[in-house]
């Protein structure tokens, strides 16, 4: 265009002017006009394409590839005479999927194979399912299927009978205990699960296993006793208290031992003592509550009352343990030392277990006194 204008207004030579004139006349003719228009349009389209954002390029590419493949599928199906509305809808969905894929990945990362795969998959996976269904409903496939189903159910039946027999025998042995065990083990599991999800590095497998085992043992053992808080006679009451204190002491000892604090008698005695104090106290307060304010209550109200009393007892025991576990354990340590020292002195006159700080302190005191005396 610029060449023509330059040739007409400021020609290099007469020949150049004539050539420009001819070109200008051609440009004004219908053929020339349409060529020029197409030229402008195409350069504009290229500019628009380059100016479009990445996702629009991807979308257009996806739509183009999708529509081309969908058209090819529909056209091929029509030619073969197997076309249908379903196929057209599937192909349309596939094209739409390809366009969405293009918009997501953008024009730069666009992969025509993936876009084509989306269309083909959308069309042929449902069709493949349809063909597989047709294949499977043949007589041979039915027979095969029935045989495998029979074999599977035979195996499942065998496994289930074994499993249920095992569970039944466990139930017979453990009775009510197993539900207490599940609850008792579940609570620490829940806690350690929460710790794990809160901060995975804080999770300690050993501690979790110890807690779950101790909880399972305690829950399972206390479940048996739980139903009989109000024992009929003093002997039974005593037996229950002793059993409960043994369980409490055992759980406390096992926990301390497994966490590396050593297997100590004082740990057992502390747990046993605390349980022995609080188990009868709890039982007593339950009886008291039931025989006083519980007398006028309905059975539901009574049940709630008992739960409330149990909770209060639990808090009392926890608070007591929290405050007094260390002092009581130290006391038992002292007692144990005294016993063993006394025993050693009695049996073989060995005083090696006597606390040496005492004698050192004594020596120190003596030195100090002699010094001050000599000084004074």
């Amino acid at each position, binding site marked *: 265009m610029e060449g023509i204008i330059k040739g007409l207004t400021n020609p290099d030579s007469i020949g150049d002017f004539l050539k420009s004139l001819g070109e200008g006349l051609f440009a004004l003719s219908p053929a020339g006009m349409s060529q020029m228009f197409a030229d402008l349009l195409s350069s504009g389209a290229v500019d628009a394409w380059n100016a479009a954002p990445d996702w629009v390029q991807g979308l257009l590419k996806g739509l183009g590839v999708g529509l081309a493949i969908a058209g090819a599928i529909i056209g091929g199906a029509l030619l073969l005479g197997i076309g249908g509305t379903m196929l057209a809808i599937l192909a349309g969905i596939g094209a739409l999927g390809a366009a969405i894929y293009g918009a997501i990945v953008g024009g730069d990362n666009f992969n025509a194979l993936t876009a084509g795969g989306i269309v083909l998959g959308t069309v042929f996976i449902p069709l493949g399912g349809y063909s597989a269904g047709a294949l499977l409903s043949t007589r041979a496939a039915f027979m095969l299927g029935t045989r495998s189903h029979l074999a599977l159910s035979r195996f499942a039946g065998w496994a289930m009978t074994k499993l249920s027999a095992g569970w039944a025998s466990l139930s017979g042995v453990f009775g*009510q205990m197993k*539900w*207490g065990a*599940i*609850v*008792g083990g*579940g*609570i*620490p*599991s*829940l*806690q*350690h*699960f*929460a*710790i*794990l*999800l*809160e*901060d*995975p*590095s*804080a*999770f300690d*497998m050993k*501690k*979790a296993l110890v*807690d779950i085992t101790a*909880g399972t043992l305690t829950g399972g053992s206390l*479940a048996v006793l739980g139903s009989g808080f109000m024992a009929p006679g003093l002997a039974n009451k005593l037996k229950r208290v002793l059993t409960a204190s043994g369980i409490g002491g055992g759980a406390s000892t096992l926990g301390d031992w497994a966490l590396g604090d050593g297997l100590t008698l004082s740990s057992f005695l502390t747990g046993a003592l605390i349980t022995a104090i609080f188990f009868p106290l709890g039982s007593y307060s339950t009886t008291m509550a039931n025989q006083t304010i519980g007398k006028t209550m309905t059975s*539901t109200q009574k*049940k709630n009352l008992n*739960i409330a009393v149990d*909770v209060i007892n*639990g*808090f009392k025991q*926890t608070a007591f343990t*929290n405050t007094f576990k260390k002092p009581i354990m130290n006391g038992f340590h002292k007692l144990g030392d005294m016993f063993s020292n006394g025993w050693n002195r009695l049996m073989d006159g060995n005083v090696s277990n006597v606390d040496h700080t005492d004698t050192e302190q004594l020596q120190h005191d003596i030195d100090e006194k002699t010094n001050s005396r000599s000084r004074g």
Partner: protein
Amino acid sequence: MLVRVLNVCVVLFICMIVTAFSIAGFTPEVAENLFTISWLSVSMRILIFMVWTGTVTNAVRKYYKENQVRLVHFRIGLLVTIVGLLFFEWKNGWPIISSIF
């Protein structure tokens, strides 16, 4: 119907605990990557609490040797859970409660 759901809860609870603890026990680095995804961690915690509620309700129901689940089973289960969790919280130095604040 409800009892069936509760039975499924027991199985789900045990499976979730065993799976999560196995991952954390055998491959700590995987657990570090997996359980720090916040949406997964939060939704798993909500799920485990729901599944545990079902489990403990079911256990209390079986403890009383009843065939139908009643509201009182749920209430006793919740109380046992609260008291038990407080006990284990106290024992392990309040890990969950201190994480809330």
